[in-house]
């Protein structure tokens, strides 16, 4: 287990533009930490800096409290799994797994024992004599994992290890990697662009965009309480619905005619009367007859079996998505009345995108106080 501390970690390739801007984070021993963000946000660069494959422009990297900026990759005592697995094509699975162990002064006998152990753990025992090209994608992935596990390094880095697998296998490997990490008790830093992987695997996650940290937190906290509109629209599938809204007196007006009352508490926090309103798809429902509702036109319906996604036009050029359980037989083009759960509204500054108010977090805070 390893503690990884980043203090003002900065990376620049040309000396002018920073691809990573002063990242501060402490990754606790035994934690499964996920770096997530769109492509080009700097997440892989950050991982490679921790691995020692990229130089650090400014700031400090500490492993177990010791400065590690100038350590060579092999001196950092970590293992890494690459997106394309980086298996040696001319070596068998067994040779691939044990390749490099001799550097760590591990005897031939011990190498063999360790290799057999991890192969058994990952279901590779029958394939030990095969070459990588004779394996399926999932098996290659497992060999790459085995190679990381066999070193018994206390810190493991993974760079989008599942992105070359099909959806079904990905879901399976997701759970396997998580279980493996728990079993071995190692610290894991995992890079992905897939928010589902981040949500399902992470103890904590960091959302990066354009080299900046957007938010760090536990998956549910991030989901319920996105720090800004970027996180709101990146985390969650489908993403949070956003629209610009105005405040007049004690009501919030979006698109000129849809309105919802706001509480005094909410109003106290607002300095402007123009905000961006955010609503999660699951907080939109079909309005009951007695309820106040809002008439919208359905643009598309996706029935997934257990749930239904309804895309509808909201305002001039905005489409919102509502998600509700069960199978709905709404047809595209139909007019439906929807209701928005006003206990789950989030308000963001239209200018900066920063969160101004989020009901979920306020409620959580209240709960804490009362208990």
């Amino acid at each position: 287990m390893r503690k990884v501390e980043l203090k003002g970690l900065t990376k620049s390739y040309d000396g002018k533009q920073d691809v990573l801007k002063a990242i501060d984070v402490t990754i606790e021993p035994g934690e499964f930490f996920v770096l997530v963000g769109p492509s080009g946000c700097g997440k892989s660069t950050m991982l490679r800096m921790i691995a020692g494959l990229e130089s650090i422009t400014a700031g400090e990297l500490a492993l177990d409290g010791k400065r590690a900026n100038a350590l060579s990759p092999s001196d950092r005592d970590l293992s890494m799994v690459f997106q394309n697995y980086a298996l040696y094509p001319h070596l068998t699975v067994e040779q691939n797994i044990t390749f490099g162990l001799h550097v760590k002064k591990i005897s031939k006998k011990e190498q063999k024992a360790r290799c057999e152990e991890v192969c058994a753990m990952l279901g590779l025992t029958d394939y030990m004599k095969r070459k990588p090209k004779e394996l399926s994608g999932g098996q290659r992935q497992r060999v790459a994992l085995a190679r990381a596990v066999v070193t018994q390094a206390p810190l493991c880095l993974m760079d989008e290890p599942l992105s070359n697998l099909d959806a079904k296998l990905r879901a399976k490997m997701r759970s396997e990697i998580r279980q493996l990490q728990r079993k071995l008790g190692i610290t894991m830093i995992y890079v992905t662009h897939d928010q589902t992987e981040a949500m399902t695997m992470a103890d904590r996650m960091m959302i990066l965009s354009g080299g900046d940290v957007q938010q760090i937190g536990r998956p549910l906290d991030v989901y319920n309480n996105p720090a800004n509109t970027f996180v709101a629209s990146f985390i969650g599938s489908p993403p949070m619905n956003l629209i610009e809204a105005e405040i007049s007196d004690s009501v919030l007006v979006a698109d000129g005619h849809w309105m919802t009352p706001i509480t005094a508490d909410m109003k106290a926090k607002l300095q402007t009367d123009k905000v961006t309103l955010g609503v999660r798809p699951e907080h939109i429902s079909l309005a009951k007859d007695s309820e106040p509702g809002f008439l919208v036109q359905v643009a598309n319906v996706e029935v997934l079996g257990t749930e239904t996604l309804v895309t509808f036009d909201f305002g001039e050029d905005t489409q919102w998505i509502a998600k509700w359980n069960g199978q709905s037989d709404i047809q595209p083009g139909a007019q439906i009345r929807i209701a928005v759960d006003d206990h789950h509204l989030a308000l963001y500054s239209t200018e900066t995108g920063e969160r101004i108010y989020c009901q979920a977090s306020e409620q959580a805070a209240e709960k804490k106080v009362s208990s």
Partner: protein
Amino acid sequence: MSIGKKVLLYMALTVSGLVMVFPILYAFLISFMQGGEVLQGSLWPESFSLANYFSAFERVPLLTYLWNSLVVSVLIMVGQLVLCSLAAFAFVFIEFKGREWIFYLFISTMMIPWEATMVPNFQTVQSLGWLNSYAGLTIPFFAMAFGTFLLRQQFKTIPKELYEASQIAGISKLRFFTGVVLPVAKTTITTLAIYSFLTAWNMYLWPLLVTNNEANRTVQIGLKQMQTQEIASDWGVVMAGVVMVILPTLILLFAGQKRLQEGLTQGALK
């Protein structure tokens, strides 16, 4: 393809094959001919006798020449493989300032005809006292821009992650080079080996310049010697010598044909 078309195609291929191979085939036949048979224009020897071969060995020290050629070619081949692969490795896997620039400078030497540098090369070799030695025959050819270029292109197809993975595992550069890069680039290296062996085997001008005694001359000079010695031109003997000289080349080509094909066509698919 219908049978008729196939027959036509194979006939055309056979005919052009014969046309291509005719000079070698005719040389082979001449090597068995006696006296004036060549001048009479006959295509087929009256009898197959090995007399020409015996006199070829008697007139010039062909065995010494063959041995010299073999040593020189093997030395050049090994030297080129070692230097080219190490240089290509540096150009691909080691980052240093001006890497691309130096590489293009390196490659640009391919545009200078070898004959243009022959005189300075000769003077260098002469002042080093390497005339009439294997060193003088081989060392000037160890660095080859083409081989470096060929191997660099091949090494570039090796995913960078393999290098990074071995860095993380703590494997040294040399061990990565011998344990991963060379085995992965095996086919290209074989192609380059065959190519450089054949080029060295067929070298004529340079050995002629830097050697002047029988003990160090190579086989191509031996052939020329044979031809000029015989004022009346006993073509049968000369051709017997030629057949002896191209034999190793042919054997190498046949043995390495598959590898050579793989090397030349790889990268075409996937």
